[in-house]
Structure formats: C-alpha cells, structure tokens
C-alpha cells in the first residue's frame, strides 16, 4: 500500500523520486477529477469493446455479464467512450445533477 503523497516528507522520497513499489498508481483514484460520468444503456450495448479499446486511462473493464463498464475510481469522465460507441449507448451524465 503506497503512502498518500501528502504524507511523505522530502527525506522519505526514494533517490530521484523513483517509485520502486510497482503498480501503485492503482491506489491513486483519479475518478475524483470527473465532472461527467459515463452511463451505459445495457439494453443497447452490443459488447463490442470499442469503448474499452479507446479508453485512454484503461479504466474500462468487462463485467461478468459481458458488458463493458467504466471503473469510476479511475474514470476521469473524458467522454471518449461515449463518442466512439458505435450504437450510441453511452451517455455522459453530470455528476452533480
């Protein structure tokens, strides 16, 4: 488990601010950056995986029932999936609304 960045003192950084605990970017939840959330209409989804392919943050994964779903811990709400979906089943919904 990586320590939160705002708790690390300068003396505790690895040399050159290197990170030797690999894969710990998983613990950095970038989902808080999001203002729009992708919502999939599962009745329209054809499970083609185009959204998964285009997601620039690799935040989309296949669910057990075969649909593709964004992991909201990491999805920044860029909307590329909604734009690229060939059947238009993804809509971007205001987080606050």
């Amino acid at each position, binding site marked *: 488990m990586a320590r939160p960045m705002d708790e690390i003192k*300068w003396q505790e950084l690895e040399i*050159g*601010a290197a990170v*030797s605990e690999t894969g710990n970017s998983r613990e950095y939840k970038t989902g808080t950056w999001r203002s729009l959330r992708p919502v999939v209409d599962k009745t329209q989804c054809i499970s083609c995986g185009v959204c998964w392919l285009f997601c620039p943050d690799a935040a989309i994964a296949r669910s057990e029932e075969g649909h593709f779903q964004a992991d909201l811990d990491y999805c920044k709400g860029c909307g590329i999936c909604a734009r690229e979906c060939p059947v238009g089943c993804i809509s971007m919904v205001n987080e606050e609304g």
Partner: protein
Amino acid sequence: MARERKGIEVSLAVAEAVGQADCDVISAYPITPQTHIVEHLSELVADGHLDAEFVPVESEHSAMSVCCGAAAVGARTFTSTSSQGLALMAEIFFIASSLRLPVVMALANRSLSGPLSIWNDHTDTMMVRDGGWIHVFVENGQDAYDHVFWAFRVGEDPAVRLPVAINLDGFILTHMIEPVEFEDDETIKRYVPEYRMEKPLHPDKPLSMGCFGMPEIYSEAQMAREQALVGSFPVCVKAWEEWAELTGRHYRPIETYRNDDAEYAIVTMGSLGETAMAAVDELRDRGEKVGVIKIRLWRPFPFEDLRKAAEGKKALIVLDRAISFGGPGGPVALEVRSALYKRPQAPAVVNYVAGLAGRDVSVEDFRSIILEGKAKAAGGETEGYTFYGLRA
C-alpha cells in the same frame, strides 16, 4: 607510480581521461568548440582502445537522453556540448539531475546566439545555472584532465548521485596545446573504482523513474534535489583531497593567489584566472596590495569559503563573462554580493562584465580593471556593473 608529461590539445586530454576512467557509454552531437573531445573519443572506441558504446545521435537533446537512459541502468556515461547545443539539450539537462543520474559532461563554454558567435564566454553555462548539476570551472589543461576523474568520482558517490558539468573555456582551453601530466591507469582505477549503482533500472526489480509529480509531492522532490546538491559539498572537497594525496595536485572550492594580505582582490572563474595572476604580479611589483580569488566550484556555491577569502578586503572586483539582461549585471557578482550581504566589515563589490564572445581580456586589461575598480570602490560607485572596454 608512472607519470607521463606531454604536450597535448586540451580537448584530446579530456577525451583520454574519459577513456582512462573506463567510461561505458558516450553519446554526443558535434558542436564547436567541443567537437574535438567527442571526435577523439569516437576514435578511441573505433580503434579498440576504449571498450564503450559510442552513440552518435541527431541532436544534443538526444545525446543527453541517451546518457540518461544509459545512466539509469548503471552505466558510466559522458557527453560534451557547447552553447546552442546546450540550449537544445536543456530539457533533458534538468531531468538528469532530477533523476539523480551521474552523467558527466564537458561543457566547452561558448556564447549564445545572437548575434551568432562561436567564441568563448560563460553565457551558455549561466543558462543552466539552476539546473541542479554540480558545476566546476577549470583553469588550464591539467585542471581539465584532472577534473574528468573528479567528476565521475563525486557524481557517482552514493551520497551524491548527481550529474557534473566540467566547465572549460571554449578555444582558450579546448583548442590549446598544453603540458599535461597523465596519471597511470592503476592510479585512476584506485581513484575512480568500478561504478555500482544502487537501484538501477532492471527487469528483475522493476522501478519507475521520472514519474508524474503532483502539487502534493513536487516541493518535497525539489527539496530532496536541493539537499543532494548542497550535501555534495563535503564530498567534492574530500575527492580533491584524495586526488592531492595521489597526484600532489591540490584543488579547492575557492582558490586564491597573493590574497592573504591583499586589500583588493579580483574575482574570476575559468581560464582568465591565470591572466589575472599575471596582472596581480605586475601590480604587486608596483606596491599595490592586490590578489586573486578564483571560484572553482560554482554549484554548490561555496559561500563560507568565499567569505573567508574576502575577509579583510576593502573591495572585491568581480569579473563576469555573462550578463543577466535587466538584472543585477553579472551572475558571479550577484552570488558574491549575496554571500557578503549584511556581513560585518564586508568588502565593497565592484562588478565588471568583460571578455564576452572571445573578446580578449589581456594582462593590461586586468590591470586597468583592478585599478579602475579600486577607484570606484573608493568613490562609493559599487552599484550595478560596468561593461569593460565597451565603445560608447
């Protein structure tokens, strides 16, 4: 130990030193007046005298990138550049120090365009003054040869792990044939042992270098860099002391000449120190109590050593070979003034900018600068700077 003294072009002596230090990776792009250094290194590699990778690249940006990549896996790396090449390299220059990669670079100092000029001054190095590297200035061919080993030794020290720039005046040093004492390979091996990097990039133990730094961590990362550079100071001094034990040649962060009882001292950096010494000898013969203070270590700046050298002086006359447009004059004077600010009995500081883009600064010029500077100090004219020898 065997020691050979020979007349050699300083660029070639630097290249020979890099070879003696058993460098692993050399990457560079030719630019005047640095070219002879890497040209000779490419010969040493091609002729089988040096077992190293010589990577010719399409730009200085790539040269420093190759050096960073090689240094990240623990290779001993070297490059060399000047002026516009350094400008093109600037982005990766800062990254080398932020990743704490001990790349060694011979920086053959040259003016920056424009007007276009290939000649020597310190404008290029001042551009990267704040780049987090250790900066040393050499005065002659022997200094240049010696400091190649010193640079690897200091930069690779586990307590330091920083890149080192060896500043040597373009043409005045790079293209001059000088007598240089060569140490034997055994001596060099003892001084620069095989480099073993702690935590290199390696597939068996994955590591991320150069990660994104959010506002929450950037300040801490910068403080770590600052502390590494400041903390390198005792290592720099110790490495010089050990070199003196091996070779009998002594170096210090601040070096002085006829300075102990001097009332006025001229402050220089680089090859002009020797000309200043000749001028001081002449002035001493005429009864003037003058001396020379030479700044060898530019970063980390030796504040305490400078204050000590300045003790008891009426004025320091600082010669700068670069100008900070719209700023305080020369960058060296700025540092000297900062070092002395609010110190009791601090000497006055008179600043001259001279020797830009290869314009000669002769013994006579130094004599005028020292005497004129002395008069300025006496008259209280210590603000700003004077452009020496400017037609106006």
